[in-house]
């Protein structure tokens, strides 16, 4: 099956997966996507606010039926604490973009600096050869800035981070789940 076939009616979903800090789990999580032929768009792994618990933020284009199955199959892994899927409206989302620009071109064309400011990006380092610009925000604005800068033919390197996200809901599902589990173990 080609990617486009299942993308009909697909949306961009974000999975938030919490796991124990054990080796080899990333493989197990990505394998669930691979097996069902869903491509991972972006992936970020980091420590969470809970000690010893890691947080995976994964985005993928999928249908709701498909992403639901994927989420359940990930949650089924022994060392996965919790997995949930979200649409963009349920999350506060950030990504970062790094743009390495030619200092010579930046100096010769003031429009470049104006563009950087207009997109709310910051210049973090300047030396005679290159200038580093950083921007955090949503995917679209980071890509837009790249296109704008690229039009000036000044971009030496460009990279965009994976997505990081926190939920907009008021419940902290993972902490509550762990508390409930711990209290059960004591019974």
């Amino acid at each position, binding site marked *: 099956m080609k990617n486009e076939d299942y993308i009909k009616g697909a949306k961009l979903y974000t999975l938030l997966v919490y*796991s124990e800090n054990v080796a080899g789990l990333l493989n197990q999580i990505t394998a669930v996507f691979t097996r069902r032929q869903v491509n991972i768009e972006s992936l970020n792994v980091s420590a969470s606010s809970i000690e010893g618990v890691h947080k995976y933020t994964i985005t993928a284009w999928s249908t709701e039926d498909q992403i639901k199955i994927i989420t*359940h199959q990930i*949650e089924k892994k*022994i060392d996965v604490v919790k997995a949930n899927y979200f649409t963009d409206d349920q999350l506060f989302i950030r990504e970062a973009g790094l743009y390495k620009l030619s200092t010579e071109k930046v100096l010769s064309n003031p429009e470049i600096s104006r563009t950087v400011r207009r997109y709310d990006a910051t210049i973090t380092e300047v030396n005679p050869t290159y200038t580093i610009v950083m921007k955090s925000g949503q995917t679209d604005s980071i890509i837009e800035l790249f296109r704008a800068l690229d039009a000036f033919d000044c971009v030496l390197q460009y990279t965009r981070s994976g997505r990081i996200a926190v939920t907009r809901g008021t419940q902290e599902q993972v902490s509550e789940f762990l508390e409930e*589990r711990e209290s059960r*173990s004591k019974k």
Partner: protein
Amino acid sequence: MKDKITGAKALMRALKAEGVKTIFGYPGGSIMPTYDALFDYTRGEKKCFDHILVRHEQGATHAAEGYARVSGEVGVVLVTSGPGVTNTLTGIADAMMDSTPIVVIAGQVPTSALGTDFFQEVDLVGVSQPISKWSYQIRHAADVAWAVSRAFYIARTGRPGPVVLDFTKNAQTEVIEWEQSKCNFIRSYVPYPTLDNDAVRQAADLINHAKRPLALVGQGVELGNAQEELKEFLEKADIPAGRTMLGLSALPSNHPLNVGMLGMHGNYAVNLKEQECDVLIAIGMRFSDRVTGSLKTYAKQAKIIHLDIDHSEIDKNVKTDVAVVANCKESLPALTALIDKANHEDWRSSFYELDEKERQKVIEPAIHPTNGPLLMGEVVNAVANQADDDAILVTDVGQNQLFATRYFKFHHQRSICTSGGLGTMGYGMPAAIGATFGAPHRQVCCFMGDGGFQMNIQELGTIMEQKAPVKMILLNNHYLGNVRQWQDMFWMRRKSFTKMMNPCYEAIAQGYGIPYHVVTDRKDLETAISKMLTTEGPFILECAIKEDDDVLPMTPPGMSVEQMKLEI
């Protein structure tokens, strides 16, 4: 005072603490320290384990599966690194598909050599993760007690499955202070989800309004040990029940509410009735494609209730109206309490006409033929008639499996070992060996084709050495029969590499010192079976089977279940 022991010895103590009695294994370089420790634990005063030396590591895993299936205990496999453990992968995948609790312990090269392409090194955790419930590398002797208890807890709880322990050589020889460990809780793992009473009420409501309810019974009932709870549920609301291949002994064959086997080669009425029922109650089964046929048309008219312990099975293949995610040992009584006593005689009797059609067109000609060569169906039927009430059926994969599961009779729980999900040829003989150890006082009848018999034929050596009382029925048609049937039906009769030249099985049996008898004539069948069943120990009964017999009925692949054919 705590005593100091090696990791290998710690493994022995940990296995003993888990109640292990039988280990199926094969030694090799990286597991030698453990085999050395095992030596003392298998003889003399200290004896706690029987070690069954198999002839190939794949055999060890299937034997462990057979052992687990009939006993309800965890099957244990001990092998060496590299090829030793890659040979177990088929069995691990098989156990994963069929929810069978086994723990595979494999040697591994020393931690310091990991990643150097050391002799007999393979990334076991990497290759086994996708096909196991849990896979873990033990790098320190101090981890042994913890890892083993966790492995057994994971293998046997919730939806059971295979667990792999990759035991580095240095961890086997390292000396530690022994401290026992008992795992009965993992915070990230919820083996028994809490029963949702609202879901139970909704399910009961659907059942109470149903005019044509149909239950589909799977292996989950056996794994949850809920055979009695199932009967009470079915009997209270008078619900006919079909069984999946792995769920065949979850409900006795002669139970009045049993309406037969589901699936591609199951019974005719129940397949058609799946498309007529108004409420479908799936209990501990996973809507395999072999059961549902085309999902586009499957039971679209019915409200679907799905009882399963594994959340990830819900809505995976068939969309449910009500899901009850829990152990059926708990959900079935909760449901029984809320359903009304009912009588569905009219609905149930609507099965009879179809049953009769199948009996006349398929069953009678298959089990009571009057002329021509022997048929698989009649051999299975004749064995079933003479076998003990609590006999265990083991099958290989292919036509032998389909005929055996169609015509064998089940009166006792945990009576079937077959490779359902993975469809592993070569499963039968080693699984039957395992079954004789898992249920030493029960008769074990193993049906195999000439293809599958040869796929793990080396295990005849294990049978010989252990005098394992496996009653082997070799249904020899000189063909890979199931593929041949499909070639005839769907590939314009082009029999591409399905005809087989076979060895002299009598000479092979003689070589292994196993009693052997061949039946070529129908009139000798009964006596031969009687001889097989009354001979102590193993026996090979070869039956010369018609070359081109087909398994019927059949729902052709990709078609709707109501398109099941009684004849070709």
